[in-house]
């Protein structure tokens, strides 16, 4: 039916694809940005946390398949993936990063690369470097037609879950006591201690949250793309990191905006040029954005009032 679509409809269809891709980027970028905001660490293991989430989702779904098929099984598997990855992220924070918080930044960065390689190689060994395939038994092509474009149910669910999570996170950071403590720690840790805030506990919570979001993205990706591989976290890790920087690293709405923008640019790039040129197109534009706004779209400039 592709021949029946007008140019605009094709572009709209790509827009939907871009939003999906962008939602994955945004969910992963949030964890990058939150962790960077609070302890100024580029957590290179974050992409591997995403990958772990996809694996746990696939494995749990396999175990549940006889008992809980379909959407219920998928939902449970994703929740299990989020819990597992949240704990994994917290453990990395507790035993690898926390002891080095007072050390030079570079040591912390190398530790993050180390954690990344440990997770990556563990999963590679367990799976013998083979991709695993996910079959939900649901009709992936089923969906609704709006005008000339088709949006599948999986896409709809994915977009609504991502939207709800992002709204929830924004409310949490913006108005709860713990959310305020997170923002305050990003600004001034010692003063937070003097307010009675258990800084280590809140940092741990940030890792729990960020890792759970990455695993949510991983689980959704597993369901959406239908396959999982040990190296799937690498590219998305770099892209999510890029998205966080474009949005203004440390900024929660920035990570969401940067992720969605990058997804859309890639989709449009695929449409206008060719899929092999999509990264050239997207990253070319991103470099341009950074030249114009070095602190990212929603990042704060470092000019301070005395």
């Amino acid at each position: 039916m592709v021949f029946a679509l007008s140019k605009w409809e094709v572009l709209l269809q790509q827009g939907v694809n871009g939003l999906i891709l962008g939602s994955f980027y945004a969910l992963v970028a949030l964890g990058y940005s939150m962790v960077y905001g609070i302890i100024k660490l580029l957590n290179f293991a974050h992409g591997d946390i995403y990958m772990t989430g996809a694996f746990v989702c696939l494995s749990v779904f396999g175990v549940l398949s006889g008992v809980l098929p379909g959407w219920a099984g998928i939902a449970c598997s994703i929740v299990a993936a989020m819990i597992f990855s949240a704990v994994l992220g917290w453990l990395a924070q507790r035993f690898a990063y926390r002891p080095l918080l007072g050390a030079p930044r570079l040591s912390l960065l190398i530790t993050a690369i180390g954690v990344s390689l440990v997770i990556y190689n563990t999963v590679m060994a367990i799976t013998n470097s083979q991709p695993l395939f996910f079959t939900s038994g649901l009709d992936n092509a089923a969906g609704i037609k709006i005008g000339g474009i088709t949006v599948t149910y999986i896409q709809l669910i994915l977009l609504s879950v991502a939207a709800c999570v992002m709204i929830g996170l924004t409310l949490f950071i913006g108005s709860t006591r713990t959310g305020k403590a997170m923002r305050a720690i990003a600004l001034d840790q010692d003063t937070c201690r003097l307010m009675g805030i258990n800084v280590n506990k809140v940092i741990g919570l940030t890792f729990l949250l960020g890792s759970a979001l990455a695993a949510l993205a991983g689980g959704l990706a597993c369901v959406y793309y239908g396959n999982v591989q040990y190296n799937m976290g690498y590219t998305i890790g770099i892209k999510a990191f890029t998205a966080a920087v474009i949005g203004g690293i440390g900024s929660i709405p920035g990570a969401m905006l940067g992720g969605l923008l990058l997804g859309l640019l890639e989709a449009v790039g695929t449409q206008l040029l060719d899929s092999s040129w999509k990264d050239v197109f997207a990253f070319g534009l991103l470099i341009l954005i950074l030249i114009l706004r070095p602190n990212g779209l929603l990042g704060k400039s470092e000019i301070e009032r005395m």
Partner: protein
Amino acid sequence: MSSTILKVENLETYYGKVAALKGISLEVRQGQVVTLLGSNGAGKSTALRTISGLISPAAGKVFFCGEDITNLPAHEIVKRGLIHLPEGRHIFKDLTVSENLELGAYTLKDKHERRRRMHDVFGRFPILQKRRHQLGGTLSGGEQQMLAIGRGLMAAPKLLLMDEPSMGIAPLIVRDITNIVRQLNEEGTTILLVEQNANMALGLAGYGYVLDTGSIVLQGEGARLRHDEKVVRAYLGG
């Protein structure tokens, strides 16, 4: 005589191998204003940071209300009512005035009590109420100092450690700050005041200690220190 609220015994603190505090002892009694004087680098801020748990001492003890708090983490010490207002105010500049105040009562779970205390702070500093939706970083120096004090009051302190509240404040506003400190004390808050502005500090304090390169070199009643020849020469510009 009133009871001792803070007792510091032979406190020693190091930055690497450099001794910043070489065994200081001091005491603050319930209801007093006690001042810790000294020039830049004498160790005044280090003393407060060690007492409030931001730095661990190498030796010595700190007792608060009779309890040994020497090795407690800072956030645990806050829960006991010992509140430290750090040098340079340290307002959270990207958070609003109300958010800054709310964080001051972080350890308090009771929402109504939190709201009541914020109401009290607004009563004391009406300018903060006017600016409550503004970001902390947009306030003037004097307003930021009021916010820092208000944020401390949100924790309902038994003892307030104040580190140079007059620093970087216009002279006219210093008088306001002095009055605020006096008023707080009259309302029952015990205060340990660190100052370079000895004139201001000795006008307020019933008792004072003089710190010099990590050791206490002089102590006595505020009025006596005010007329002590060495103090006058070194800190009062005599």
